[in-house]
Structures are given as C-alpha cells and as structure tokens.
C-alpha cells in the first residue's frame, strides 16, 4: 500500500486536514482538558469568571472525598461487571462467529440479523427486561447485569470476530486438518493465534461498551451494585462542590478505559488495520 503523491496546489488534503484539526481540538480535546482541570480545582475556582484556565494549585481534596464516601467502590463494581461480561461475550461470540464464518450458518442474512439486534433501542428493551428481572429476582444483582451485558455485546462480538475469522486464509485451517488436528484443535492452534489482534481489539470495545452503559444500570440496579456512570449522575444538578466531585469521579472512571486502550494499543493498531494488510 503506497501513499498517493502530493501535487502541490490542487489538493484535497490540506482542506481536510485543517477542518479535522480544528474540529478535534474544539470537540474532543477541550472538554477532556476542562474535566481534568476541574477535578483539581477548589470550589471557588470552578464558577469563577473569567474561567480559570489552569488551577493555581493542584489539590487532591476532590479525590480524597471519593474514597471516603464509597464512590470509588462503584468503579470497582463497574470493573467486575464489564470484565466478566466481556469474557463471556468473547467466548460465546467467537464460537458463534466461527460457525457463521466457516460453516455459513444461516447465511449472510443471518449475520445481518444478528448485528441488527445491536441496533434495537436499549430504552425499548430495558422495560420488558426489567419485568423479566423482577420476576427472576435478578434486579440489583451482579449476575443479572453480567448476563445482560453479555447478551447485549454478543451481536457485536459475533459480527467483528466473523470478519476477522473470514480474513484467515482457509488453507491454514485445512493444512492443520490434514496435518492431524481435530476441529477443536484447529480453533486453538490456528484460529485463536491468527485472530489474536482482532480478539483483543474486540474485547477492548466490548469492555468499553459495558463500562459506559448508563441506561441498563440505572434501571436495573438499586443500591447493591451501583455502577460508576450511575453514581456520577447522582450528583448532577447539585451544588458547586458536587461539580468538583463529578469531575474527579469522571477522571477516576476514565482511568480503566485509558489502561485498557493503552495496553491493547498494539493489538488495536493491528486489529484495526488487519483488513488493510491482508491483500
């Protein structure tokens, strides 16, 4: 894959690049910076006018209070829920994806039907699920949310992994079959190693989806397993000292995602560009 040559004047590139740079700065970078800064501000600084662009003194008071109030515990809850559901969704989804990719289970339309499930408005299904959970006694429980997140992420995992598995040359599997592997051994010795980057990339996304869920957690939890997004919103609309708390909570809640993305970065690069290099 070579890059296109650069022809001095008549070029689309510059226009696109400037638009992109400006948009990114305004929309993505500024709010994150602002959030970060606020979490270290004193209450007075938060609503000061003109705004305080960078705090005079860095103070950790906003963070200390999180651990005293048990707010930090909700981050742990979120970790358990997102982590467990990711593991289950990856195992089930990868097996299903293999079936779809290699045995053409259900054909192309079935694959589209599966990913269509992902488009169902959560707000539409949260209500019957709530009724179901009340009946089962699953409301406000870890297993209830883990099952739900697993089911909700399954279509995404199946869809992504199906693509990655289809990218594996069939001959690699055939060669293993001829060489003496059973179908399960082919999965372990060929499919998983070959799709490793895709597996990790998909797992990161799955984790983040569950981590970021707000609606299901809001409706299906009470006090036992409050998640970090729900806890943050408890403080919305409150006093100015709550703003500082929200900011600190948000930074805290972003750290696991940051680590997930950072540690998986090389797989993400490979997983994302997999399609490009296979030719």
């Amino acid at each position, binding site marked *: 894959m070579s890059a296109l040559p650069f022809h001095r004047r008549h070029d689309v590139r510059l226009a696109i690049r400037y638009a992109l740079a400006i948009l990114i700065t305004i929309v993505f970078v500024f709010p994150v910076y602002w959030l970060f800064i606020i979490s270290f501000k004193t209450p007075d600084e938060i609503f000061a006018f003109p705004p305080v662009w960078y705090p005079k003194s860095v103070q950790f008071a906003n963070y200390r209070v999180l651990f005293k109030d048990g707010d930090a515990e909700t981050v742990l809850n979120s970790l358990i829920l997102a982590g467990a559901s990711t593991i289950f969704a990856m195992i089930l989804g990868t097996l299903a994806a293999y079936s779809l990719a290699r045995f053409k289970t259900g054909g192309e339309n079935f694959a589209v039907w599966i990913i269509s499930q992902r488009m169902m408005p959560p707000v539409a299904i949260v209500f019957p699920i709530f009724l179901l959970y009340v009946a089962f006694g699953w409301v406000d429980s870890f297993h209830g949310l883990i099952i739900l997140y697993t089911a909700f992420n399954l279509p995404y995992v199946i869809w992504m992994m199906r693509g990655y598995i289809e990218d594996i*040359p069939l*001959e*690699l599997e*055939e*060669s*293993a*079959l*001829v*060489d*003496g*592997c*059973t179908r399960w*051994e082919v999965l372990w*010795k*060929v499919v998983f*190693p*070959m799709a*490793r980057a895709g597996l990790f990339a998909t797992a990161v996304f799955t984790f983040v989806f569950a981590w970021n869920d707000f609606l299901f957690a809001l409706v299906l939890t009470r006090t036992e397993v409050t998640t970090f997004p729900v806890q943050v919103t408890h403080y919305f609309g409150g006093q100015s000292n709550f703003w500082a708390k929200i900011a600190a909570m948000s930074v805290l809640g972003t750290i696991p995602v940051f680590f997930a993305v950072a540690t998986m970065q090389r797989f993400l690069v490979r997983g994302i560009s997999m399609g490009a290099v296979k030719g």
Partner: protein
Amino acid sequence: MADLKVSGLHKFYGKFHALKGIDLEVPSGEFTVFVGPSGCGKSTLLRTVAGLEEASGGRIEIGGKDVTWARPRDRDIAMVFQNYALYPYLSVEDNIAFGLRARKFAEAETQKRVARAAEMLGIGALLKRFPRELSGGQRQRVAIGRAIVRDALLFLFDEPLSNLDAQLRDDMRVEIKRLHQELKRTMIYVTHDQIEAMTLADRIVLLRDGVIEQQGSPLALFERPATKFVAGFLGSPKMNFLKGRIGKGVVTLEDGAKLPLPSPKGKEGGAVIVGIRPQHISLGAKGSRTAHHVIVELVQPTGTRLHATIPFGGSTIVGEFDAHAATKPGAQLAIEIDMSRAAIIDPATDKVI
C-alpha cells in the same frame, strides 16, 4: 500396487457438476500430475482425495483402505498448498514440526525429522526465523518441508508454484523433481501450467469439464494426443489448427493450399482439422516444390528461437524458427511443414483420427 484408487467419483456444488464420475489409479511411487484449464475439476479432485471436500458419490481408497468418508487426518496424506499455508506466529522449525506435534510424536523424533527435512531442502539455517522473514521460494520450501516430515503415504501438491515468479518457478520445479527421485514416494501434483505438467510428471492426467480427457506419459500425450483439446493444451506455442478437406493423398486447406497426407485417413471429401506444431514448420528453399510461400505478419524473438505469425491456409499459423532467420513483419518466406507429425482431427468429434 495403487496407493490411490478413485472409482466413480462425483462432486456437486449445488447444481454445478464439478466431477463427473472419475475413475483413476495412481501407482505407488509415481509422480502424477492433474492438469487442465481452470474449472476443469483438477483442484476439486485433489481436495476431495484429501477430504477437504466431501464426495457426492463414488469411492476413494488410499493404501487399500476406503477413506471416502474419513476425516482428512485419518487419510495418511500430506499436502502443500498454493499460498504456502504457513503459520505466521510460528517459527520455521515449529511450522515444520506442526503436523508431528499434532500427532503427538515424541519430541526427540520430531527434532530429528525436522532437522533431516530442513537439511534436504537447504533451509537448515532458517529454522529460527519466522515466515514473514522469508522470500517466496524459502516459504515454499518450508511448506514442502512440513509435508515431507510427515512421511505420509500420499503427497498432494495444489499448484504449489503458481505464486512464484517465472525464474523461481523453474528452480523449484527442478527441486521438486529431485525430491521425488530422492524420496521415491507417491506424489500427486495439480497445476494449470502445461509446462509444469510436462516437465514434472511420470504420468499426466488431463482433465476437462470434470472428466478425464486423456492420461499417460508426457511424451505420449504430446505426440499422440487423443483429442483436439489435448493437442491444443500441451505445447508452446500452441498447436496450429487449419480447416481443410481430404483429397487424394492430400488435405486441401480453405485457401486452396495442399498439404500431403502421409497415410490415408478419413474418407475423401470429408472435412478435417489439421493440427501442426510450430516446431514442425521449418524454412525451405525458395522455389522448392514442397515449400509454401508466405508473408510474415508478426515476429517474436525468444533468444535462440523466434516465433513468426504467418497468414496461411485461410487462417493464421505460428512457426518456430532460428532467431537469425532474418524474418521481419512483411518478409517473404518459404516454409516446409512436416506432415508426418501433424494431427488429423475429425471436426465432428474433435477426436484425432
């Protein structure tokens, strides 16, 4: 003894009838090449023998054992794939050892075999490398190594050289042939390239549209083709085909030119197709009674030889001459045609008479 016996083998893909009742025996120790144009069923036949496609009907025996419904791993075969099929996450050594480890060979035996195969293929120095660090030719060698360590009854090659460039293909061809002389194992090789088939095979099985068109030694097929298809498929440049009618000891071509018939064939007045190889057209003396006077249309030098395209007999033929025949487009030539080696074909059946 036949290491592979195929009887009445059929294969359908939906409604497409890919193999139409193949009967075939591959004798032990022979190098057999399945060849034919794309879509002829040669790869399907190989893959069905390997168990990678399921037969729709018929019977496959390997080493005297019915394996028609057996899994690939239970067929005692080893296979080399067109795209090498190397595992990019394994070293060369682990790639070669893959099949042995899958079959739970003792590690010492595995090491010994891998070392021997690597030495035989001249890749001993590459064992610690990864496939991405190898050239195309080296990868193909590793793929072959992975097959030969297995010591299977039947070695299958599915167009193993078609991803290599011309020069490397020539070199690897020699090496595969040498390997066969050394190992003396039964090998089946699939290719669409007639030159690969001719140079490698002890026996060629030429397929067309899911049936075996002809089989035999390379020279037998080249010199005594049974059909027009076989005559046209083997040889480069392609055999020239000219339409004509049988006369008394001659064939009269469409433009009136007459070619002598060495032996009486077909019935007088009947339409025939005369097949002449470019190598059997030579330069004659100008004014000779048997020479035909023609004008060259196009010239392609290949080094020591030269291919000239010449309008003749109501069509266009290609002749192969010496590079210094001094022919240019527009040049006048006198050509002689060696009719003793021509193929006379019945246009109704496309069979060689």
